[in-house]
């Protein structure tokens, strides 16, 4: 009974929403006809760097950075060209080639590799190539001492190319190509330090968990093909209103499963924390700014499906809400600086998911938060990398403290990112998170309150991180000599910090909302139960409480150098990632291991045993019957006689009868 009530309470009402817009791309011309170059450049870079071998060691990192920078330039030119077009004409397609075709005559299914450049993908292009280029620059310094730096850049380029395929594809199959491509790049980069067993295991875990999500993607594709006969966004958006809600709901949930895998949402969240085994630039680029947000992109891109599948939309909201709290709680208890940030990433993506699940009202805010988060989280990850760089790769915050003097630029940029994420008024995160909480409150108060609490928790764990890292007493060992990072690393930090501060301008005059309207539809103004200013003040108050709490619990006390063990149940649970891995192990891994072992025995003793048993039976009977061949002529003669008699008797019987 309560469950039903809760479901009803959670059901997001989208009644009265306008029909989702139909995608109708025009042919690419002018500057936009060079669109394929965006993907081709980093793809070429990856191919050269990975195939050329050691002879490219000396210039590999430069080539890798140059290709991405080139991509960024093309993206920028394309974006300007798109700005110059009429609002109704901002969807541009470019057909590359037909991937595969099945069927004859009138019933052909054709999967095309084609690009779709519209307001949504334009934003992603800028984010991916822009932040990507900055992180490439940063990596030149960060990986300078690694003998395999050239390969690192090859993988990074591969990732950029795949990510661009993901957001530029004009259909689900092409998207899936990029989807798996980024998964592969993520696998390679998480496991970049292959000699560490933990890195190799984390890489494998990320790939396998993502594969579980892919199950949803593949099945969704099968259902889409069975229903629509095409996989292109244009074809599906045109036909989606004629398809039954049940089918769309099924597709929606399958896509949600895929999104959960890629975006580390509950229940497929467990891989992200382990993924921090990768080099820090990777965490910044892949596991914060771009790849993990692909799930949000998928939901927003599939608005024509979710708009007509209310239950699936509710599913998205539930997943988002649970994850935003889940990640935040984990973030509170971790001592590893990267893991705090990873938990925070999960939580922030939860916000985006939540917004995307709210439908037309939320899509634009989901993308908005995605962009600002891309800036400030990349900034903070790179900042964390800079800290580690100066601290002999130490990640435990209990061994930090008072670093603000030793690394002033890192501290300053990190602080700006920190203010952005907690939503300090005026910073980018303030605008984007605020809008999501507002919309959530307007649509459904349960979700809205959860999002509000999340904001407070975010403020708590981020303040804790700041305090433990940059303030307080110095807790590092004597042989560690913290120092500021070289310019090649701090420059990207400064750029990203600036973006974290001013990212909010995107929403000035509702620009972003109008910009995305051709893709996601026009949102009707929602009625808030209370005036906006009240909500804004409430959010700011909650954030202030979070900051104050952190100050009282962490800032005013001595931070022990080893984690205390006499902690409450909640802390223990959060340290263990809320037992996500324990559940996976108990439910899947160990029974799975038992199953494979059991089946191995079964195969050997039952299936093959039957075969060997049959062979054995023949062998045994042969050794039995050959005893009759005893070598005594007289016994042969006797059996001859017996045989003759037998034949005679048989003949007699037959004759008489």
């Amino acid at each position, binding site marked *: 009974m309560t469950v039903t009530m809760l479901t009803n309470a959670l059901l997001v009402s989208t009644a009265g929403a306008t029909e989702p817009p139909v995608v109708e791309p025009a042919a690419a011309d002018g500057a936009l006809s060079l669109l394929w170059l965006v993907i081709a450049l980093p793809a070429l870079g990856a191919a050269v760097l990975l195939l050329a071998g050691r002879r490219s060691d000396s210039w590999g990192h430069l080539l890798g950075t140059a290709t991405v920078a080139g991509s960024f330039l093309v993206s920028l030119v394309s974006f300007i060209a798109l700005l110059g077009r009429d609002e109704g004409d901002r969807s541009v397609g470019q057909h590359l080639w037909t991937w595969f075709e099945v*069927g004859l005559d009138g*019933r052909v299914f054709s999967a095309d590799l084609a690009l779709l450049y519209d307001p949504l993908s334009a934003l992603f292009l800028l984010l991916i190539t822009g932040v990507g280029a900055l992180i490439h620059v940063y990596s030149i310094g960060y990986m300078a001492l690694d003998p395999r730096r050239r390969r690192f850049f090859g993988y990074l380029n591969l990732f950029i190319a795949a990510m661009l395929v993901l957001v530029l594809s004009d259909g689900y199959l092409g998207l899936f190509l990029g989807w798996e491509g980024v998964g592969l790049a993520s696998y390679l980069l998480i496991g970049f330090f292959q000699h560490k*067993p933990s890195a190799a295991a984390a890489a494998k875990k990320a790939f396998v968990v993502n594969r579980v999500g892919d199950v949803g993607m593949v099945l969704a594709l099968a259902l889409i093909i*069975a229903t629509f006969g095409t996989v292109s966004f244009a074809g599906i958006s045109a036909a989606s209103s004629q398809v039954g809600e049940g089918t769309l709901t099924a597709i929606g949930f399958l896509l949600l499963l895929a999104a959960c895998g890629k975006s580390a949402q509950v229940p497929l969240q467990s891989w992200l924390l382990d993924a921090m085994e990768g080099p820090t630039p990777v965490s910044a680029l892949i596991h914060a700014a771009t790849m993990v947000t692909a799930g949000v992109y998928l939901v927003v891109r599939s608005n024509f499906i979710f708009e007509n599948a209310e239950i699936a939309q509710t599913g998205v909201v539930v997943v988002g809400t649970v994850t935003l709290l889940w990640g935040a709680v984990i973030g509170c208890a971790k001592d590893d600086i990267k893991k705090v940030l990873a938990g925070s990433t999960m939580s922030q993506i939860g916000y985006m998911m939540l917004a995307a699940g709210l439908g037309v009202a939320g899509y634009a805010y989901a993308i908005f938060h995605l962009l600002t988060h891309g800036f400030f989280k990349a900034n903070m990850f790179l900042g964390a990398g800079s800290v580690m760089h100066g601290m002999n790769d130490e990640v435990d915050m209990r061994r930090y403290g008072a670093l603000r003097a030793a690394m002033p630029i890192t501290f300053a940029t990190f602080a700006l990112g920190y203010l952005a994420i907690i939503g300090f008024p005026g910073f980018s995160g303030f605008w984007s998170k605020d809008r999501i909480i507002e919309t959530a409150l307007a649509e459904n108060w349960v979700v809205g309150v959860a999002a509000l609490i999340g904001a407070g928790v975010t403020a708590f764990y981020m303040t804790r991180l700041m305090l433990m890292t940059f303030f307080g007493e110095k807790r590092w060992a004597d042989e560690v000599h913290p120092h500021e990072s070289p310019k090649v690393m701090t420059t990207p930090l400064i750029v990203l910090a600036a973006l974290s501060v001013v990212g909010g301008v995107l929403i000035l005059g509702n620009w972003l909302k109008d910009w995305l309207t051709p893709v996601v539809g026009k949102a009707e103004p929602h009625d808030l139960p209370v005036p906006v200013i009240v909500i804004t003040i409430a959010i700011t108050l909650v954030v202030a409480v979070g900051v104050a709490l952190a100050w009282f619990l962490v800032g005013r006390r001595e931070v022990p150098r080893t984690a205390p063990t006499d902690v409450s149940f909640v802390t223990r649970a959060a340290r263990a990632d809320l037992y996500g891995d324990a559940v996976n192990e108990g439910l899947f891994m160990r029974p799975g291991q038992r199953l494979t072992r059991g*089946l191995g025995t079964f195969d050997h003793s039952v299936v093959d045993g039957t075969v060997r048993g049959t062979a054995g039976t023949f062998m045994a009977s042969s050794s039995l019957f050959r005893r009759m061949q005893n070598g005594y002529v007289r016994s042969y003669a006797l059996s001859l006689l017996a045989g003759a008699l037998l034949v005679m008797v048989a003949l007699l019987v037959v004759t008489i009868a």
Partner: protein
Amino acid sequence: MNGAWLTVLMAVPLVGAAVLAALPRRVAPVVAKQVALGVSLVTLVLAAVIGFAYDPGAGYQFSVELDWIPAFGAHFALGLDGIGLALVLMTVILTPVVILASWNDGDQGRWSVHSFFAWMLALEGLAIGVFAATDVFLFYVLFEATLIPIYFLIGGFGGPQRAAAAMKFLIYSLVGGLVMLAAVIGLYVVSADSEFGSTYLLAELQQVPIDEGVGRWLFLGFFIAFAIKAPMFPVHTWLPDAAAQGTSGTSVLLVSILDKIGTFGMIRFCLTLFPEASQWATPVIVVLALISIVYGALLAIGQDSIPRLIAYTSISHFGFIVLGIFVMNSYGATGATLYMFNHGLSTAALFLVTGYLIRRRGSASISDFGGVEKVAPVMAGILLFAGLSSLSLPGLSPFVSEFLVLVGAWQYAPWVAIVAVSGIVLAALYILLMYQRTMTGPTRPEVLGMRDLGVREVVALAPVLLLILGLGLYPKPLLSVIDPAVEDTLVYVDGVSPDSPDEAVTGTETDEEGDQ
């Protein structure tokens, strides 16, 4: 183009094999190797010419039909359609690759190096004949004849238990072959009463009306033989043993080429000769295929021996192929045929690169490796590439085929696709676990001195890797050959069941096409 082409194509490797076998033993082994490579390359060129001259959508081509044993209507009849062409191409591509990759693998065999390569060429010629045969009796004879070279290849040039493995393989296959022989004789009896008189020509047999009950028995006779060959659960246990004992080259010939005869036979003979019986058996076969997919994958996860692991992955992949064939729609069947080709490539790459690895270490056990990437990065890269193709990463060729099979399965029944799709998760596990345990982690002292791949070894693999990538992004050349032939095949099964899932689906699809 006349029919002599196919006969020549088949004869060249067989003559090459005879020449190699006749070479005096005092001729240096390297000459034998070069002759073998040369012959296989000539065959490749011939097949390429045939491939370019082939006209997709025009049915059987390069046909030849000579009376062979008139007393029971057997002919020497060859002909290629798209399905056959794809598999012939796979055979002629893989044979030179295997010869080059196994350059030194025949040196310590029980028999001479000459015979090692002679048997390989013989196998190539016979396999081409099998894929091109359009006479059931000829097919049967060649089908059984392929056992001879592979028996000697496993039994003469492999691991310590090779004799037992070869014997197990031979007896397994012979049992299947004999069951099939009974069905072949049955076909003769059935056809003798028909308007064609006694005949074994495929084109004529397809028109012979076969009684329902009889048809089902004959179908079973063929299917059991093909299921053993393929191999499917529960008649698969010969494959891991054979793969573990044979050299890596032998395993490629066995799994990539020879086993395809099973699935090829299903689509060529089971579906077109016994459409009604195929429909009748579909539910059971689909379930068996699903079991193969999951069972093979789960067992692969638990293996410690690398070749056995690859053998079990193949059982899983063959499950996909059989599933695609028996869901009987154009997605499934086209995907399955494409899968045969792609699986040939990816498994060949996997067997060969792990073969290099195993030869260097002298052990096939995963737990004897660790951290090899550090000392042999090229080998690690190729192993990962081959592994990724085996787990059907989009962009590499097996993805397209596996995806099509899954789409076909969904249209047959969603639950089938849902069960089958678990295969992609398990595939990620078995491949990446193997990679993790052999290539990553701290480098074990035993592998510290391991050489990375040499030029010959890379050159041998390069064509396969390039094809995997090329066909992954642009499989159209192959699909345009396969697809019309598959559609022609499906006409037979469509005819007997008007409400097959394929029809229902393509119905909506046509509507959609109309809307756009």
